[in-house]
């Protein structure tokens, strides 16, 4: 008989074999044996102040590295607190492995103290969830969990660990390679499908690439750029796809959809071929479905077959890994061009000129000369001063959309956002996770005052471990996006959006031992940002921005992209005064 180990020791060794460097968690009764083993283990653990932050941090870690992020909660409330983070990871296809404590096997189903049906609760929020029934099974199940998290369409996996299993002794047998090392990728296209796709691209005159997070997940950004330049086709990205194509590239159209630019949305309305790559035709992208890109043929490249024809019917589906697909498409395009089939280049040039004229008609802009601090200006300034490889983590709401519009994304895996679920409170802990992955890179959390108040208790974590994240609050003293919708779509019946009753965030940061500052004047922004980004310490900056600012353009709910409202209606003086009264502190 070989050496025997406790389930906790086997678990930590299994994590180590999966090359887990750090995980985020909070101890409790059911996982005490695990923390006891952790005491003398070499693996790093960050003590968060709420399990939701652990899940978001693991998500942030996964997005910037491409490797599964790991979080942990104890049984019962520890596990249920992870669920929002797991649901967000599920919606955005982010590989996260959640470890949860569970009451001893013999007590499951007895409504024991801190017992929750974690497997049942997590079912729709995870790709898979496993209850471990014996310590000897831990290596196999952890291997499977990591493999499942990264294979096919990535996503979160949960492993529920009863306390008795963590304490049980067993002789482990470990798989020879990490489960996350070789993700399984399906390929369901045939060579003739690629030939057909290349023909459709060459035949088109007004094509657009519509790119989502799948391009980032499969590391296909080089192929995307090569293909776009080869075919001379402009690229628009979803929120999840930001960073997959450089914002400054002449073929970049930026983000499309509800808050996409006029030129971008017009290009979708007028295109004759739409090539969706790693994107899922989300309602915030499409607007009214029946009018979405209605003049176009459509090709859909996606690793998940269930996305094909889910929302929008397509003419050709290439189910498989985006990178492999794009590589095959590039090779096939080159082959067809060699054989004499030429792209409709003259038509393409006209198409790009047309897009440029739309850009000129309604550029993304804001009032740059008013006395108030405009949130767009803050974001633009942060982007200008940030390092080339800086990572941006945003929360959810108006500032998220302004960041999508005004931040210059140069590299993949630099934009973290709870895009599908839209979970407020995500930005700050996600930044923390990203910073742990890349301690030497600049990580900036741009958050709203509403979302930040949901997870600001982890300022303690940042202070304790000196995690040098930079927290920029776009503070409009309101739930801004809700306020905007009440203003535009509910006849200005403002109801429960006022967040004036809030702490002084700069003083709060100081109380945690983090330097904090408030900025209230436009002219102070550049110097404040320069100073904010100048060191390797956690910092907080509280920008008091114009509370009446709204995100434009906007596609009203239920409308088509063509019906977007590009700029705010002019308001009467008395209405402005009424708003001033509302926001007076």
């Amino acid at each position, binding site marked *: 008989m070989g050496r025997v180990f406790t389930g906790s020791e086997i678990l930590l060794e299994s994590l180590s074999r999966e090359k887990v460097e750090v995980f985020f968690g909070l101890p409790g009764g059911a996982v005490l044996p695990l923390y006891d083993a952790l005491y003398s283990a070499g693996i790093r653990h960050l003590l968060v102040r709420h399990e939701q932050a652990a899940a978001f941090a693991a998500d942030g870690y996964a997005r910037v590295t491409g490797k599964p992020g790991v979080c942990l909660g104890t049984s019962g409330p520890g596990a249920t607190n992870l669920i929002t983070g797991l649901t967000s990871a599920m919606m955005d296809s982010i590989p996260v492995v959640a470890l949860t404590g569970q009451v001893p096997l013999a007590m499951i189903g007895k409504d024991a103290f801190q017992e929750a049906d974690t497997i049942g609760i997590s*079912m729709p929020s995870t790709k898979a*969830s496993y209850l471990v029934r014996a310590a000897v099974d831990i290596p196999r199940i952890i291997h499977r969990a990591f493999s*499942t998290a990264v294979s096919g369409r990535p996503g979160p996996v949960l492993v529920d660990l009863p306390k008795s299993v963590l304490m049980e002794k067993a002789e482990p047998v470990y798989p020879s390679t990490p489960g996350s090392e070789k993700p399984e990728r399906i390929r369901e296209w045939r060579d003739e499908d690629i030939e057909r796709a290349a023909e459709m691209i060459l035949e088109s005159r007004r094509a657009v690439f519509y790119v989502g997070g799948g391009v980032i997940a499969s590391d296909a950004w080089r192929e995307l750029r090569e293909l776009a330049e080869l075919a001379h086709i402009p690229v628009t990205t979803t929120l999840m796809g930001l960073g997959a194509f450089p914002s400054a590239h002449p073929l970049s159209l930026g983000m499309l959809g509800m808050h996409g630019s006029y030129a971008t949305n017009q290009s979708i309305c007028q295109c004759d071929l739409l090539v969706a790559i790693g994107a899922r035709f989300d309602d915030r992208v499409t607007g009214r479905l029946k009018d979405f890109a209605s003049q176009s043929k459509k090709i859909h490249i996606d690793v*998940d*077959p*269930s996305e*094909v024809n889910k929302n929008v*019917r397509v003419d050709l589906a290439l189910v498989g890994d985006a990178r492999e697909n794009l590589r095959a498409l590039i090779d096939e395009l080159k082959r067809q061009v060699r054989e004499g089939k030429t792209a409709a280049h003259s038509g393409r040039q006209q198409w790009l000129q047309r897009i440029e004229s739309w850009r000129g008609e309604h550029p993304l802009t804001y009032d740059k000369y008013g006395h108030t601090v405009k949130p767009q200006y803050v974001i633009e300034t942060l982007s200008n001063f940030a390092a080339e490889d800086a990572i941006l983590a945003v929360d959810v709401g108006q500032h998220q959309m302004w960041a999508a519009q005004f931040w210059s994304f140069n590299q993949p895996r630099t934009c973290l956002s709870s895009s599908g679920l839209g979970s407020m409170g995500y930005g700050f802990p996600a930044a923390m996770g990203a910073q742990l992955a890349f301690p030497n890179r600049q990580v900036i959390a741009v958050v709203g005052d509403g979302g930040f108040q949901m997870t600001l208790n982890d300022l303690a974590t940042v202070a304790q471990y000196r995690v040098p994240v930079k927290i920029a609050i776009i503070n409009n003293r309101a739930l801004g996006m809700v306020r905007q919708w009440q203003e535009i779509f509910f006849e200005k019946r403002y109801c429960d959006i006022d967040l004036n009753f809030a702490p002084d965030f700069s003083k709060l940061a100081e109380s945690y031992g983090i330097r904090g500052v408030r900025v209230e004047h436009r002219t102070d922004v550049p110097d404040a940002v320069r100073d904010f980004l100048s060191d390797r310490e956690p910092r907080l900056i509280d920008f008091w921005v114009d509370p009446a600012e709204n995100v434009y353009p906007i596609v009203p709910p239920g409308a088509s992209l063509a019906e977007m409202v590009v700029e705010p209606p002019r308001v009467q003086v008395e209405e402005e005064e009424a708003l001033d009264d509302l926001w007076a502190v």
Partner: protein
Amino acid sequence: MQWLMALETNGDPISICRLMNIFRRKGVGVVTLTLAARPSGFSLMALVETPEADVDHLFNLLRRTEGVDHVTCYRHEPSGDASFVFIDEDPASTNVARFLQTFPESKLIFASHGKYLLEVPADRRARPVASDSGELQFMPFARVKTTVAQPELVAAQAS
């Protein structure tokens, strides 16, 4: 439109829960359903009501769900030839016995709790047949999608 979904999962009951949750979330109307335990897992057969436009998505979603080993989707063919027939009978009925008498070459694919799926040989496509004791009651189906590997037809080589 009615479809027959035949699913095989691993032995973890959570896999069945995932499937049922998919039916619920996707608004699939379950007309009748039966579940059987096998040594290696579960078999589930559901007669469902869902628009034809949603079937691709549903099939693909089911087949990529964790714990699902196989999915086969059959389309109801009320007026067409039936390669497969589904019989849902009460204990007093003799439909299955009479069907097997009429089509003895039929192959039983699934049987549980009074629900039977049978494959009818291609040369004896089943149509409602009058027998001594009345018309056989069954629903004809055509298999449209499956994850189960099918034997490939190989053209005979001319000598």
